[in-house]
């Protein structure tokens, strides 16, 4: 070696002729399928009726959101509060599962296993009709909602749901977050347990309490490891929010069944709705991707 300069950088990966051939075959295949579907399905595509349910022109000709868009907003509100609540539930139960206290460990384990091993639909039904039927009257939600001042009604409707459906919305958020919380709990547990034992020992050796060890040493390291699976779970939560359509929450999927039934434009409706879900979930994926990169840069 006479030269201390680095060798020329390897060329960036590029598509080769073979790759283009494969792409061509893929695209041709897709076109063929679309063509066949069009042949088999006797279907007059009619998109504008469905689009009218996304946005419409009011009397003055201005564009205003229609039910599909308000349904999407409901889904987003549901997902937003559901994500926050699920993250808290998942964090607390995940910590419980790594606790030295047998009682906390058992309760958290029971919760996780119970939720993970029953179908979401069953859980929603049981929770909504039995449990929320018992809890909500005790909390006095409906009474509060009926007697609320116009200002607080406006706030509730902006942040949560139409006032008349508030207790349903609350039940939906609790349902969804309890359900997703179990999966987040597992992610948190795995993340905490993936941190080297030496980190616990070093933190305890400088006299930190268990709370401080977790807050200052373990969780900041765990969060970096669990961010990718966590992001996946949050995106799943957005999609899973559709299961609460069963319980009278006017979220996107439920509104879509209404629109499909009303217009009889079944395929158009579901394709539009599919696109709306995709747009939301993919933006979330991009957001988490950036967050991940930001956390990764600079340090080990």
């Amino acid at each position, binding site marked *: 070696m006479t030269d201390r300069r680095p060798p020329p950088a390897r060329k960036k990966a590029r598509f080769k002729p073979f790759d283009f051939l494969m792409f061509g075959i893929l695209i041709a295949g897709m076109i063929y399928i679309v063509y066949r579907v069009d042949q088999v399905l006797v279907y007059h595509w009619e998109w504008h009726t469905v689009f009218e*349910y996304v946005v419409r022109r009011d009397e003055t000709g201005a564009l205003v959101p229609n039910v599909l868009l308000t349904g999407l907003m409901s889904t987003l509100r549901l997902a937003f509060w559901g994500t926050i609540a699920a993250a808290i539930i998942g964090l607390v139960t995940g910590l419980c599962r790594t606790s030295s206290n047998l009682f906390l460990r058992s309760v958290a384990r029971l919760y996780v296993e119970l939720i993970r091993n029953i179908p979401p639909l069953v859980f929603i039904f049981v929770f909504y009709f039995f449990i929320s039927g018992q809890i909500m009257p005790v909390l006095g939600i409906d009474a509060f909602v009926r007697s609320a001042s116009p200002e607080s009604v406006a706030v509730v409707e902006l942040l949560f749901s139409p006032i008349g459906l508030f207790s*349903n919305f609350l039940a939906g958020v609790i349902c969804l977050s309890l359900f997703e919380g179990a999966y987040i709990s597992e992610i948190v547990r795995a993340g905490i347990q993936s941190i080297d034992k030496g980190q616990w020992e070093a933190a305890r050796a400088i006299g930190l309490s268990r709370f401080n060890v977790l807050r200052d040493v373990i969780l900041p390291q765990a969060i970096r490891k669990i961010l990718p699976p966590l992001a996946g779970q949050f995106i799943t939560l957005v999609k899973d929010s559709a299961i609460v359509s069963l319980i009278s929450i006017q979220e996107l999927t439920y509104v879509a069944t*209404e629109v499909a039934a*009303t217009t009889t434009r079944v*395929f158009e409706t579901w394709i539009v709705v599919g696109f709306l879900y995709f747009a939301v979930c993919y933006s979330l994926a991009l957001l988490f991707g950036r967050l991940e990169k930001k956390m990764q840069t600079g340090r080990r």
Partner: protein
Amino acid sequence: MRLGRVVKSFIGAAVLSMVAATGVKAQVQQELSSSSVIEEIKKRGVMRVGMSVFVPWAMRSKEGELVGFEIDVARKLAQDMEVDIEFVPTAWAGIIPALLAKKFDVIVAGMSITPQRNMTVNFTTPYAHSGQQMTANKELAGDFSLEDFNSSDVTITCRRGVAACDQVAGRLFPKATLRRFDDDAQAFQEVVNGSAHAVVSSAPKPRFWTMAHSDKLYMPTDENLSEGNEAIAVRKGDPDALNFFSNWIQEQKSNGWLQERHDYWFKTQDWAGGVAAEQ
């Protein structure tokens, strides 16, 4: 003398207990009527109605509002009770459990009276008598007589859990394969696509679809396959509500209002432009 006193006190005790008993009875009655859903609605000032979208009973207009035959019925009912109305659109599969769980006060959702449902909820006098109709795929079943549909080679679609499915299709065509869909439109689409022979659904949908897809669909019979009795459903143990709603329906029948509304939604398609439904 002694005996006289005994008899007297006995009679006295009997009278006393009778008075007490009628008092208790009155109290029970009062409790029953004060716990009636009618009282609840009046106190709240809002009637909460469980419903499910089903053309033309309840639909989303282009403005996103709920419109339809029973939307009219429920609105008029609330208006006559001098209370506001709140619709709680609910998935069909969960609508009875939701009523039982007091998520709303009544179901006005084109629900036809069946013994099974009647075991869990009470029905008022029917406010509509919709027929069940059938439309079939021309290519698959163009030359079928009505009896030909009762064959194991035939697939008939319907919406899960509605009368058309179990009471009509199941009874008239026991040999045919029934495919149940959560959504009415899907059930129809299957027949248009040629994946199923026929679909059974409440009037007037089969007629509307046949008109819209006249190249693909036809109606094997113009007769209704059966007559339904659609009624308002209320929770059990509430005679006051049952009486009130039934009498209200009776009155709207007598004065012709129900018929007029029914004809508008079922016999005409004047409303179709407003809901972007198939013409």
